[in-house]
């Protein structure tokens, strides 16, 4: 996704790319303008100090008259203080705007990322996303705080300086322009190259971060198989290509520097030669030559910095591109244009009507026409062999993915006609893998129901048979769990995930094999609790084990993306051979062995 991206970037100018930041910069434009004015003021004050010094030396000192001296020294002092103060003001004025823009950009990409479908997140490495939200945004912050301002200030100084030069002596001015023009062209060429390498380096940095993440999260597997060395090898290969990209940057930078340093010097040498001859011919005064060289010397920093500032601008532009790459991602899960209101009382009548589903909108259908209804208060277990499409089916109810054909309805309303928030309020989904966040138990259970009281949380924990172990945690429900907190066992995590599902008192529960990681004791306890909860709630439960199936009123068997049979557990056991194969208990296992 990165290489072809880099190609397209080169065809667009940095400024066009950066102009997309305008909506964010607009609210802080006044502060930035003030900062710009301060920078310009500081620069002018700094430039005029030598002129006053010239006056002191040529006037009072040369003539030995000290009456004017206090005034002129006073003027130097005033200009000096003004420069320092404006200098301070420039920095102080752009701190808040730049960090504020950075913050807003980050919050907006976070907003977008949180809403992009699971399929997007499966495709993108989180390291890549992270490098956009952290590194790229700091690049943009630096650009706004510094490069953008000095690009304007220095360009202004450059124009003024060249104007002064041309007035002093057109010939000497032309020499500077003759060297300045190729400088601008060459620096532009180098910058363009630099931009490509910079983006490559940023991408590689993102990849590297992903590898680091994998190596850390998968450390147990790496240790178990002693594969740390291999992981290190591939990490180093990546680090080496990052080094390669960085060195390409360095090479371009070095060439750019060579140009930036030599051309202005050559311009001054040229001025010296022409000026020297001019003075000898009497067409030029020595004072004019000195003045011209002095001005040309003053213009060096603006000249020098233009290249570097352009580099910063390009870095910022490529950071900006990467940022918008994610922001421009179209979210296929859209809020309905004309949302329907939830009925006064939600019964939780769940229906799948000729539902088709394919990942990424591809050809390969995982679900090939599902018709299934779960009546209010009923629990239906979904069984099927690995890969039969059970998990895909569960994702469709809460719209973690959308059907590619047919529809899913709750109380007769297509789930796509409900506001996402409304839908997910009445449908709770618990996943096979319980994810805990680095937050308190309370926060982990309440998650999206911030108005849940401690009472509610305790009640949910009770239902999920988690109250006891939570009470034993060092700070009870205030204990931080997750990666940055106390680590819990798989069964404990699963029970917290269950508590999370029931805390909002949803009308429809979708449970993707919630009992898989529980040991027998707790499995039994959770089951009993679940039975109580499931009594008056509509539930679709993916099940692998007979014990889970027994929670259900009816069982639907999924075979190759279609519902092959629906009935009670005992009916199916009695009549369906495939079902027996899927859920046969130990006894039949032994039968088979006997048969073999």
């Amino acid at each position: 996704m990165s290489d072809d991206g880099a190609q397209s970037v080169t065809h667009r100018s940095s400024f066009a790319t950066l102009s997309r930041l305008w909506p964010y910069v607009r609210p802080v434009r006044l502060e930035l303008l003030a900062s710009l004015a301060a920078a310009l003021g500081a620069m002018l004050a700094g430039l005029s100090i030598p002129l006053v010094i010239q006056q002191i030396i040529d006037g009072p000192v040369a003539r030995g008259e000290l009456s004017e001296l206090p005034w002129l020294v006073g003027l130097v002092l005033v200009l000096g203080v003004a420069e320092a103060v404006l200098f301070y003001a420039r920095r102080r004025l752009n701190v808040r705007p730049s960090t504020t823009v950075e913050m807003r950009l980050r919050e907006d990409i976070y907003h977008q990322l949180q809403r992009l479908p699971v399929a997007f997140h499966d495709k993108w490495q989180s390291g890549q996303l992270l490098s956009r939200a952290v590194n790229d945004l700091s690049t943009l912050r630096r650009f706004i705080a510094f490069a953008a301002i000095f690009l304007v200030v220095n360009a202004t100084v450059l124009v003024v300086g060249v104007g002064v030069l041309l007035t002093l002596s057109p010939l000497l001015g032309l020499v500077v322009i003759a060297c300045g023009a190729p400088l601008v062209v060459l620096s532009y060429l180098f910058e363009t190259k630099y931009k490509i390498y910079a983006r490559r380096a940023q991408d590689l940095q993102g990849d590297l971060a992903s590898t680091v993440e994998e190596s850390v999260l998968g450390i147990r597997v790496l240790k178990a198989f002693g594969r740390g060395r291999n992981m290190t090898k591939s990490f180093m290969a990546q680090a080496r290509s990052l080094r390669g990209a960085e060195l390409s940057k360095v090479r371009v930078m070095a060439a750019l520097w060579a140009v930036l340093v030599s051309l202005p010097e050559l311009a001054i040498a040229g001025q010296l030669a022409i000026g020297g001859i001019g003075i000898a011919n009497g067409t030029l005064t020595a004072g004019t030559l000195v003045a011209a060289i002095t001005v040309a010397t003053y213009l060096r920093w603006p000249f020098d910095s233009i290249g570097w500032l352009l580099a910063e601008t390009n870095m910022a532009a490529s950071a900006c591109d990467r940022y918008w790459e994610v922001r421009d991602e179209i979210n296929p899960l859209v809020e309905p244009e004309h949302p329907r209101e939830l009925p006064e009382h939600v019964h939780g009548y769940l229906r799948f009507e000729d539902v088709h589903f394919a990942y990424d909108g591809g050809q390969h259908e995982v679900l090939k026409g599902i018709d299934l209804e779960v009546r209010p208060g009923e629990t239906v277990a979904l069984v099927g062999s690995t890969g039969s499409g059970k998990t895909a089916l569960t994702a469709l109810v809460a719209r973690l993915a959308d059907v590619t054909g047919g529809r899913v309805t709750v109380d007769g309303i297509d789930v796509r006609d409900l506001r996402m928030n409304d839908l997910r309020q009445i449908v709770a989904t618990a996943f096979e893998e319980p994810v805990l966040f680095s937050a308190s138990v309370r926060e982990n259970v309440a998650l999206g129901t911030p108005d849940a009281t401690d009472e509610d949380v305790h009640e949910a924990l009770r239902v999920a048979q988690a109250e006891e172990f939570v009470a034993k945690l060092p700070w009870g429900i205030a204990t931080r769990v997750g990666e940055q907190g106390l680590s819990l066992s798989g069964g404990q995590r699963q029970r917290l995930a269950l508590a999370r599902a029931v805390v909002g008192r949803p009308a429809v529960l979708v449970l993707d094999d919630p009992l898989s990681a529980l040991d027998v004791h707790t499995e039994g306890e959770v089951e009993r609790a679940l039975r109580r909860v499931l009594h008056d709630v509509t539930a679709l439960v993916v099940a692998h084990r007979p014990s889970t199936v027994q929670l259900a009123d009816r069982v639907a068997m999924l075979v190759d993306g279609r519902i092959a049979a629906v009935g009670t557990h005992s009916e199916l056991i009695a009549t369906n051979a495939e079902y027996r194969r899927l859920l046969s208990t130990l006894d039949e296992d032994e039968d088979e062995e006997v048969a073999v």
Partner: protein
Amino acid sequence: MSTPTTATPADTDWRGVAAEDIENVDKVVTARLQARSRRLLVSLLRPHKWAVALALVFVLLENGAQLAGPLLVAAAIDNGVTGVVAGRPATLVWCVLGYALCGLASAGAKFSFVRLSGRVGQDLLLDLRRRVFRHVQRLSLSFHESYTSGKIISRLSSDVESIDDLLDMGLDGLLSSIFTVVGIAVTLLVLDLRLALVVLLGFVPVYLVTRWFRRSSHKAYRATTTAVAKVIVQFVETMNGIRAVQAYRRHDRNEQILHEVNVEYRDANNQAFKVMSRFTATVRLVGNVTVAVVLAWGALRVVDGTLQLGVLAAFTLYLRRLYDPLDDLAMFANSYSAAVAALEKISGVLEEEPSVAEPAEPTALPHEGRRGELRFEGVEFHYGPDTPVVLPEFDLHVPAGQTIAVVGATGAGKSTLAKLVARFYDPSKGSVSLDGVNLREVADVDLRSAVTMVTQENFLFAGSVADNIAMGRPDATREDVERAAASVGAHEFISALPEGYDTDVRKRGGRLSAGQRQLVAFARALLADPSVLVLDEATSSLDVPTERAVQAALETVLADRTALIIAHRLSTVLIADRVLVVDNGRIVEDGSPADLIGQAGRFARLHEAWMESLA
């Protein structure tokens, strides 16, 4: 090194409480941290000392050529022009050529310096990345359980990058600035001692403000990196838990939290900038005031006749050039602070000793006879010196080839037992030995090929299915991989994937279901062909037919292999030769499944419960 996250009540509110060590940055600690990171820096630079010296030469050359320029201009005007008038253009020609040459030489030196220092810097970063990554891989699991992935990612990415920044922009400016400041100071002292002393007087406030700046900006940057780590953790956790985020409408709450940490990060950045702007403005102020003072006094002395006009002019010109590089130095100090903070954290990770250390002189495992005999002798275990004992002292002997099932409630210590066998931890007391060799004396490579563990956290890496299975034995052929997959009944579903064994499973195996991931993990373990196989709840998320297939495979695979199986399913337990019932860290029952069922103990009760659930 950890961050003080338990700072404010609002913070602890949602984050909850954790036993984080709140860092007290007193003077002793700071000094120790500085010494530690300096050691690291020196060791990183040592291999490049000649290149660094050469780079220094280039900078000297560049600056020398630059300093010569104004002298040549003066010569051209004073002597060259008069020469041309007198019909001797040679002087002017030489001056112009000399100036051009100086310009080209300084450009060439700059070019060489940038390339050379860039190379050294990147080599150094590569070295640093390698060291940290390797070290993190070597560190024990206990470290990984306390140090979060987000923090390690920070160490290896943003922290290394701030060192990159320092090398990138800092070195160049720093060296030039130092040469300029020293050169000018010396020139001034030679030109006029008294006036130079006035100038040097200005260095006193500059020195004081620099000292203040170094301390404050250092603190500010520490705050910045701490805050950015929080932003990173929030991001990573949201992206990794995106399913739960969406299903439970956590968006808004998350945005609130991100806003919180974002504001903290912004404020930290603002503080850093404020410190910076105060410093640079003060330096500039001191410089400008010095100019005014030098002018006033200098003018008086010129009129007195105690100072030459030219010297005064030189002073004012040089003063400007003296204070300009001080700003660069400030810029350097800025990235220096960032890099120092980063280096401190990195060196902190590097100084972590793996609590499970590889032996210096490993003992080889015997190759003869039946292998896989395990012996626990006087083993006691707790996770840390101040934490409660998880496994009180016990002995256990597992003959080679025996399949042992460990049952017990969650938290009874089953997994800990398994982790001791795989040496994820060392026992706090006593020893665990394999084939008569203490695990502490076995080389890591040998141990990993002898003991393989499959856990319920079956992590897959982004990459093909085949690559993931081949992790168990990298030199395995495609046939070996497919055979291993087939033996656990995974061949069917893998072949049905769009690109079969070459299908990318995506990050963390996201493309596969939990059951499928577990099958891949199983195939991976079988391919490794270890003499001891540890299965920690490894069949928990398989469906019945798959588990049946795995079990059938296990019965052949485990036939001549020692196995430790932690399971809560009767079907798995019954294939064991021997069952251990663990309660509160103690082995309370030990015997064959049939014996234990007959004894009316805990296992018998469990068995009864199982049978009921299956009915």
